[in-house]
C-alpha cells in the first residue's frame, strides 16, 4: 500500500470521528417534560428549551426575581414552554438587560433539584431588527 493511501485512510477515519463526536456533543431542542425525564434518568446532558415568559392577564410578567443588592448572581424566572408547561428557571448571572421585552427566550442547561439551571439565555426581541413603525410626531416635512 502506498503511503498516501494510508494517510488518506487516517484522514477519513478522523473525519468520521469528528462527525461522531459532533453528533454526540450536539444538543437538542426539547420541552421541559423531556428535560425532567432526562434528569430522572440521571442524564445531565444540557439541552435547549424554547419558551415564553409567564404573564398575567394584563400582560405583566410574573414570577421574575432579581435582587442585585442581595445576590447579583442569582436570577430566577418562570418560563412557559411550547407545551404550556411552566417551569422555574434559575440563572446564576445578572439578569440580562432587555429581558422583559423579549418575545421568545431560548435557554440552555439542565434540570437540577426541581429547577432548571440555565447557563445561557438567548433573547429574541421583536423590535430588535424589525422597525415597522415610523414616529410621525417628531417628523417634519
Amino acid at each position, binding site marked *: 500500500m*502506498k*503511503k*498516501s493511501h494510508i*494517510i488518506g485512510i487516517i*484522514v477519513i477515519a*478522523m*473525519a468520521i470521528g*469528528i*462527525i461522531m*463526536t*459532533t453528533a454526540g*456533543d*450536539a*444538543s*437538542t*431542542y*426539547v420541552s421541559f417534560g423531556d428535560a425532567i425525564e432526562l434528569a430522572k434518568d440521571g442524564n445531565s*446532558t*444540557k*439541552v*435547549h428549551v*424554547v419558551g415564553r415568559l409567564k404573564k398575567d392577564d394584563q400582560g405583566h410578567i410574573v414570577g421574575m426575581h432579581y435582587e*442585585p*443588592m*442581595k*445576590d*447579583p*448572581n*442569582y436570577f430566577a424566572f418562570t418560563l412557559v414552554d411550547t407545551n404550556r408547561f411552566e417551569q422555574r428557571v*434559575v440563572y*446564576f*448571572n*445578572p*439578569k440580562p*438587560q*432587555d429581558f422583559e421585552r423579549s418575545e421568545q427566550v*431560548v435557554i*440552555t*442547561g439542565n434540570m*437540577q*433539584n426541581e429547577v432548571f*439551571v440555565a*447557563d*445561557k439565555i*438567548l433573547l*429574541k*426581541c421583536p*423590535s*430588535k*431588527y*424589525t*422597525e*415597522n413603525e*415610523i*414616529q*410621525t410626531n*417628531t*417628523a*417634519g*416635512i
Partner: protein
Amino acid sequence: MINTLIGDFGHASVIVAFVAAIVASYAYFMAARQKTEESGDTTWRKLARGAFYVHSIAVVAIIFSLFNIIYEHRYEYYYAWSHSSNHLPVHYMISCFWEGQEGSFLLWMFWHVALGVVLMNAGKKNKQWEAPVMAIFSFVQIFISSMILGVVIGDFKLGSSPFILMRDFMADAPVFAMDPNFKPADGTGLNPLLQNYWMVIHPPTLFLGYAASLVPFAFAIAGLWKGKFSEWIRPALPWSHFAAVTLGIGIMMGAYWAYETLNFGGYWNWDPVENAVYIPWLVLVGGIHTMIAYRRSKQGLRATFILVITSFVLILYATFLTRSGILGNASVHSFTDLGLSGQLFTYMMAFTVLAIGLLVYNWKKIPTTEKELSTYSAEFWVFIGAAVLCLAAFQVLVTTSIPVYNSFLGFIGIESNAALPADQIAHYTKFQLWAGVAIAILTGIGQLLWWKKANKKSFKDAITMPLMLTLLFASLVIILSNKFDIFTFKLDNPVYILLFVVSLFAVFANFSIILGLLQKKITLSGGAVAHIGIALMLIGILFSSGYSNIISQNNSGMLYSREFPDEINRDNVLLWRNTPVQMDRFKVSYHGQFQEVKGVPGYVNKELLYQTDDMYKAIARGNIQVKDKVYFETGDTLDLISPENTYYEVSYASEKENFVLYPRAQVNPNMGLLASPDIKHFAGKDLYTHVSTVPDPNEEKDWGELQEYEVSAGDTLVINDYIAVFNGIEQIEQVPGVQLAEGDVAVQAAMKIMGERKNYHAHPVLMIKDQMMGRVPEIIEDLGIRITFLNIDTENHKFKIGVNVTQKDYIILKAMEKPFVNILWIGTIIMSIGFVMAIVRRNKEGNGGEGKVTKVREERKAQVA
C-alpha cells in the same frame, strides 16, 4: 422635498452594472474559446474589456448614489432611514454603508471590480489568462449584482434594492396615505455596537479577502477549462497569499472588535458568523501549502485543485449562512434576512456544480506522479499539514452547519431538533487545540526539512538547537509559573503544557531558519516569519483563553439558594457608589456616571451636566476642567458626542498601581442596554472590565418620603447619615434651563454635605416666575439624596428645605484578567508581515519566466549545499 433622482440614478446604475456584467461574461467567454484564441481575433476581448469597464463605472456610480443618500440624510430612502441618523459622524456613515446586506454586497462587488481591473492590466505579459479568468470574474459579478437588482416580476423578486423609498417599503403606513411626500426627520441610527473604528475598516478588509479568494479560484477554473492544469499555479500563488493575509487580518480585526466592544469576555465566541470565515481561511491556507509543494516537487496537483476550489465554495457557503437567515436562533449577529435565500443558494450551487463538474470531467487528465514521498521529504510533511488544516476546517464546518441540517431535514419533511452544542467552547477546543498542536509540530519539522537537506543526519543537526532551546525555555516558564508567583497562572495542565512546548518549538525552529537565510537571501524567509506569527498566536490564545481569570468573584457571603453551593461560579460583584470592594489584589470602587463632551479630553461627570431638551446639548453646572486647564465655564452650552453612552468610572487600586477604567453602557431604544468593556493593557496581561447590569436609567427613581427641615443660616443637620451644613441663601441672576423675565426672582440655598470621599455643594433653587413658585431641586447622585428648597420664612429668617432619600446608585461588574493576550496580536502582525514577504517573492517569480524560477531553485540548492 423628496429627491427621487439620486435613487433612480442609483437603480439605473445597478441595472447597467448587471447588464454589463452579462455582456462582459459572454464576450470573455467567446474570447477564451480555442478558435478565437488561435485566430488572433481580438474583437471579443475588446468588447469584453469595454463591458467590464462600463460595469466598473456603474458600480462606482451605485456606491456614489448610496453614499450620497446616507451623507445627505435623505431619509425618504429606507436604507438611510434604517441605518443612519442625523448625529452620526462621517466615519460612521461609512459603517452605515455596509451595515445592511445591500451595502456589503456593493462592497464585495467593488473589490471584485478593483481586482478585475488590476488583473486585466497586470496580466499583459501572460495574456492567455485574461479571457478565461475575467470570464469567471464577470460571471460572479452577474450573481452579486443580481442581489441588489430589486426587480419584481409578478411574485418573483430578484434582489433587494438599496434605493427603495420609504413610501414603497412601508406602503401600508398611514402617514404615506396622508402625504406621499412625507420624509422622516431623522433616521433610526446605526447599531451602536457597530459605532466603533474597527467596524470602519474590518468589513472592507474582510470583503477584500473574500474578493481576493476569487482570484486563485478563477485561475484554477481557467486552468481546468483551457487544459493548462499546472501553469495556473504560478500566477495564482501570490494572489492566494494575498487572499489569505487579507482574510486573516480581517478575521483578527473582527476578533479585536469583539474583544473591545462586546462583553462575552473574549475575542472569539465560535459564533457561526465568525466560523463561516475561519473555515475557508483554513482551507485556503492548506491550498497555499499544496501549491508551494507542487511548485517544488510536481506532486499534489489534484489536491491543490480540490483545496482552491473548496475554499471559494466555502466563501459562498459563508455568504449563504450569514445572509439567508438560516442560522436563526444560532447566531447573535447575522444579517437581517432579506428573503434572498433562494438567490444565494443558486449563486452557491452554480459555482459548486460548475467547479466540481469541470474537475470531474478533467480529473483523469490532471498530471500525477507515481513517485512515493519519502518521510524525510518536506513535501510529505507539508501535505500532512494541509490535511490537518482541512480536518480542522471540516470539524468547524460540521458543527456550524447544524442549523442547516435542521432546515434541510425540515425541507424534505423530517422534523429535526438538533441544536448547537451546549458548551460550544469546550466542544471546539477539544478539536482545535489538537489541531493547533499538530500544526505547531508540523510547521517546525516541515520548515526544517524544507530548508535543510532532506536526510536523517542533517535533519538531526538542524533540529537539535531549536529543540534544546524549547526545552530550556519551556521548563523555565513552567517552573516559574508553578513555584513562584511571577505570573497570574500556574501552567500545570498537561495539554496546555504540550501546546506551549510545541508552539515554542515552532518559534525556535522557524527562527533558526531565518537566521540561516539571513546571510543568504532574507527575502525567502516569508514562510518562516509567517509560521513564527502563527506559533505566537497559538501561545497567545493558550494563555489568554486557557488562563483567563475572573477576579470579580462575589465573596459577600450573601447568596441565594445554597443548594448549589460549589459548582456555580458567581462572577459578578455589586459595587455601591463610592464603597470600595476588595477584588483579588485590587480595591475597586465605582465613582459615578460620565459622558463624552465635544472638546473635552476624557470623560465628564454627569453631575456637571445639566441636560436640556435636546439630547445632544447640555449646560455646564460648574467649570469643566481637566488637570489645570478649564475647557468650559459654568453656564456654557456643551455638545454631547453620544448621549446614549454612559461611562462608569471604576477605579482600581493596589499596592503597585492605581488606574481608572471607564466601562460603557449604551441605552438604545431599539436594542436596550448594551455594555462594552474597558480594558487596561499591561505588558503581560489585560484587565478586562464591563458592567453586567446597571439600574434601569429610564425607570423613575423611587425617592421615598419627603422630610422637611426648618433651618437658619449656619445650622448643621444630618441627612441620610451624612452631616450637612446650611450656609445661607443668595440671589441669583440665572437659572440653568429657565428663562427669567423681568420681575422674576430666584434664590438658591448654599449647602455643604460631607460625603465619604469629598464634600458636596448643593444649591437647590427657589424662584418666583410669573407669580408662581418654582423649585429646582439638587440631586446628589453620589449620596442618593435630593434637596428641595421649599420656602422662606422672611419674618423669622428661617428656611424650609425638603430632603428625599433614594437607594444609592450601583453597578454590577465583571472583571477578568487575560494573560499574554498581547502575544496573540503581535503574532497576528508577524504572520501578516511574513505573508507580505511571501507575496513579494511569489509575485517576482510569477512575473518572471521559468528561467527565474530555476534560478531560485538553484539558489535554494546552493543554500542546502
